[in-house]
Every structure is written in C-alpha cells, then in structure tokens.
C-alpha cells in the first residue's frame, strides 16, 4: 500500500461529485428535451432578454467590486499599518460578518431600507423627506457591497501584512515620499491581494441570487435569479444548464486570466 492511495477516496469523490456534475451541465446545455444534440439552448442565451440580464449582472457586479475595492482597500491598508496591526480584535470584527449567513445580513438590510423602515423612520423623525430605497438598483448594490466587502478586505489585508516592512522603508530610504511609496511599492506589491479580492467579490456578485429579490423587490433580475428561475420555476433545465455553462466559462476565463496576473497565487486567502 502506497501513501498516495490515501488520496484515492478523495479522487473518487471529486470525480463523482465535482467532475461528473460539470459534465452533466455540459450535456444538458448541449441537448434539447428529446436528448438530441442541439445548440439551440446555447443560442437562446444570445437573445436580447437574456443578454440584458447578463449585462445587468456584470455591470452591477463590476460597480459592486469597484466600490468594495475603494472602501475595502483603505480599510485593509489601515488595519495592516503600524497604527492598527496590533489590534487583532478590530480585524476579526471586520471579517466577522463574512461568516454570517448572507440571508440574515440581507434581511437586516431589508428592514433598514424599506419605505417604512428604520432609515426612513429616522429621516422622517428628523423632518426630512423619506427616500425610496428598497426596490431600487441602489438598494441591490448596497446589499451586495454590504455582503461582499469583507471578502475584499481579507485578501488585501493578507497581502499587505505579508509585505516586508523593510521594503517600505527601503523605498522611503531611496527618497520616496509617502504617496510615492504607496503608488510605486505598496500598491504594486499588494496587487495579488487586490486580484484575489476582486475575484472573491466579483464572482459571487455576478451570480448572486436572492439579494436582488429581497432588496430589489424582484425588479432587477440577475443572472443567478435567472438560472434559479429556469430550473425551479420554468422547468427548462436545458436552458438553465446553458446559462450555467456560460457562467462556468466566464469564471474559468477570469480565473485563468487572474492566474496569469498572479502566477504564484500569493493573494489567495481562504
């Protein structure tokens, strides 16, 4: 018995539960209800209706990613800086929501943003005009940022923390002022973390479902909702598989692009 045999149960498991299901997705995507090979479902993805949904998902996910980056990078930077790096509690606090059920978080957001919700009640109490938030694209976006922000902070923080403090000092020593140090050294060296963070936010953001329903009141169907609908409401499994296949392709392409940008996988965290 060789030691490598210990990996066999796992290998078998992966073949049955990871690879085989993927093959089923491909199979369903490329056949029609009669089981015959057909590209019609794949072609149907190109219809304006679905492109519109795909586009909305990509665009919302992109904005969400940018906002998370803009909010999360400074947070990660400050947490990793000398001012706060001793403060482990602070770090855990920022990460904690990441481990909390996203439905609960979204649920909480919902009660804040409803027309008669807490924010509007406060606004009214202060004599201000209430704002319609729930059911808007903005609400969906806030919900997504709220859910995914910690996923940006974590890898960026990890890469910043891994960075040799002396490299920063070396740059200062060579005449870089703080802004230059950041632009020329810190930022490029934290790129792996940024890339990993972008992946960890963008991927789930593109495929998120339920958030748009709970916060967007179903007004902004996203790709994840569409897949859900095809499978569990419209009973159109072949088309649903086509949509999933497109999603898989998108992800695989982005991952390989990212692998190119970060060949050593330095930024990977969790």
């Amino acid at each position, binding site marked *: 018995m060789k030691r490598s045999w210990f990996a066999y149960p796992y290998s078998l498991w992966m073949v049955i539960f990871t690879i085989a299901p993927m093959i089923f997705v491909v199979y369903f995507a490329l056949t029609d209800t009669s089981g015959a090979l057909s590209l019609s479902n794949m072609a149907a993805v190109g219809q304006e209706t679905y492109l519109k949904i795909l586009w909305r998902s990509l665009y919302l996910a992109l904005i969400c990613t940018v906002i998370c980056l803009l909010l999360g990078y400074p947070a990660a930077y400050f947490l990793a800086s000398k001012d706060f790096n001793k403060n482990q509690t602070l770090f855990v606090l920022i990460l904690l929501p990441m481990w909390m059920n996203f439905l609960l978080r979204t649920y909480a957001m919902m009660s804040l943003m409803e027309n008669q919700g807490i924010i509007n009640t406060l606004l009214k109490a202060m004599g201000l005009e209430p704002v319609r938030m729930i059911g808007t694209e903005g609400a969906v976006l806030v919900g997504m940022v709220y859910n995914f922000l910690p996923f940006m902070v974590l890898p960026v923080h990890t890469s910043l923390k891994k960075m*040799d403090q*002396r*490299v920063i*000092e*070396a*740059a*200062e*020593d*060579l*005449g*870089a*002022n703080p802004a*230059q*140090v950041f632009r*020329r*050294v810190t930022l*490029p*060296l934290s*790129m792996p973390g940024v890339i990993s963070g972008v992946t960890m936010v963008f991927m789930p953001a593109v495929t998120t479902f339920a958030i748009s329903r709970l916060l967007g009141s179903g007004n902004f169907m996203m790709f994840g909702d569409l897949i859900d609908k095809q499978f569990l409401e419209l009973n159109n499994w072949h088309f649903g598989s086509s949509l999933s296949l497109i999603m898989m392709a998108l992800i695989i392409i982005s991952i390989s692009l990212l692998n190119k940008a970060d060949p050593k996988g330095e930024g990977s965290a969790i």
Partner: protein
Amino acid sequence: MIEDTHLIELKGVSRTFGTTQALKDINLYIRKREFVTLLGPSGCGKTTMLRIIGGFEYADEGQVLFEGKDIANVPPYKRRINTVFQKYALFTHLNVYDNIAFGLTLKKMPKDEIARRVGRMLRLVKMEGYEKRGVDSLSGGQQQRIAIARALVNEPEVLLLDEPLGALDLKLRREMQLELKSMQQQLGITFIYVTHDQEEALTMSDTVVVMNHGCIQQIGDPKRIYDEPKNAFVADFIGESNIISGVMIRDELCEMFGQEFPCVDEGFAPNEPVDIVVRPEDVMVVGEDVGQLTGEVASVIFKGVHYEMMIRTEAFAWKVHSTTMQPVGTRVGLTIVPFNIHIMHKAGGQ
C-alpha cells in the same frame, strides 16, 4: 582620508520599547568617510541605532545631528542617507534595473542619466548584464550586490548597512567584506555597518563601536579594541580570551590564584578587585619546571593554523593557542609576559 569633521553626532540618545530600554544615553560621533561598525550581540541596540540614523525610528531623548543640524523631523526620504537592509528588501515587482533606478526616477532625473548611473553601479557591483532579470531569480550574493547598488546609486553621504552579509555563506562573505571595504574607499563616503560578527568588524572598520544592553562598551580602532579591551564583555566578545577574577596589588603587579604576576597596567586603586584578560595566543607553553603555572593538557583540537588546547591548572582551565601540539595528559608549564596581561575594572563601569 577620514576628515575630522563630525558628520553625524548622537547626543544622549535613548529609546525605549515598552519596558525594554533599547538605547541608553548614547553619545557618539561619526566622521566623514569613516567606516564605522556597530558591533554587539543581538538585542544590544545596534540596529535601533542604525534605524534612528536612517529615520525609521525616533529617539525618545537626545539629539541626532547631521552636519550639526538636528534631523529629528527630517523624514527618511529627505535624508542624504541610504540603507542596505538586512534581507535586502528588494522590490520583487521590479526587475534589477528598475530596482536600482528607483531612487533616481523619484528624483525625476533624465532617462539617459539614469541609464548611465545604473550602468556604472552595475559595473561597480559586477552585475552587468542582469538588468532585465527579476530579483527573485538572483542568488543571495547577487541580491546583496543589487541592494548595495540600489543604495549607492543615489550617491548618499552616508550608507547604512544592517547586517548585509548575514545571509551569505562564509566564503562569499569574506569576498564581499573586502569588496565593500574597497568600494567605500573608492567612493569616499561614510559607511555605518551593523554586525554581530566580530571578525567582520575587525576586518573592515576604521572604528568599531562595541555595544551591549543598549550601552556603548568601547569605541576604538580594531587593533585597540582587540588588544586593549576596556572590560570583560569586550574582551570576551572580541576574540577568545581567558578571563580571570583577580586583584590589582599595586601598579604593574596583579594577583591571580594567589600568585603574583607582573603586568604593565597602572592607575588602579591598591588591592582593587579586577578582571584579568589573557588572549589564548598569549599563553606560552613551556617546560613544566620553568612555567609560572603548571597544568595538564586536557584536550587538543586542531584548528588549521594552530592547536587549541585546554590546559587545566589547579584553579582554572586555560584556553591556549599554540602551533606546537602537546599530547593529552602531558604536564606543562605556562608563562604569560607582562605586556600580554590586560587588567580591567570589574564590569559595571564603562
């Protein structure tokens, strides 16, 4: 060579981290074109001192003067001082050329001027042809050279080196020591060098500053430090020594193991308890009947050029270096000439 102006001066500098006092009331001046080594065991405060000079740390008390001006509020990037870091701290996202050019591009120097200077530096550190290589692909010695080039290209007044050779193997280290020394002489700038390797310190420096527990133990040129250690710590840290607790009976006469030895030191109080240091190579092995002391050879180790023997006398085991070997068990006599007996005040004073 060394100009007699005080380029850098530390006045009463102290620094405390939490409850540990890393530097205690340091007073030191460094002259232009001097090669100064801060030597001491790890945790003695030498790196902290270097970082204060570099601007990465601040002094809680005291002043750091550069050309007579207090530079406490000058950030590192405005000091005319550059540093070679302990593990080089090269920028992994830049190639060799861009690493070296980093400081110059920040100064917005014209491209061709940068190229010229970087080229010259690469020649100086014997790394021509490596411009486009990633720094990760270089060996430790090569990275070391790049780190030096990156600092020197900015033509600093002072180069700070924080154990720059620590990660290299012995042979490469010896080579680099010589190269660094010759570079320093060639460029005519001040080097402040931190190391815990006494051999390195003695080989390269104009001045050695021996430190322990945040205090300067002794400042002097290598020969002086070696031959006339000011206290038992320095004696022990610099080279090998036999350190014996004794009494200074009067000028030029001391007592060890109840036996009187003539020496050359003066100026101690009568019967003052002192530390007596004798270098192993200064203990002469003679016939059993003619020595000041007698003992038996307990062990012999061949050390290449000489033999190291432990010779056990009644009260003390002497470490002795000699080119002639005595077999284990041989009874021998030991003699120490007065000039080689170094008397020091008991530890406590500086």
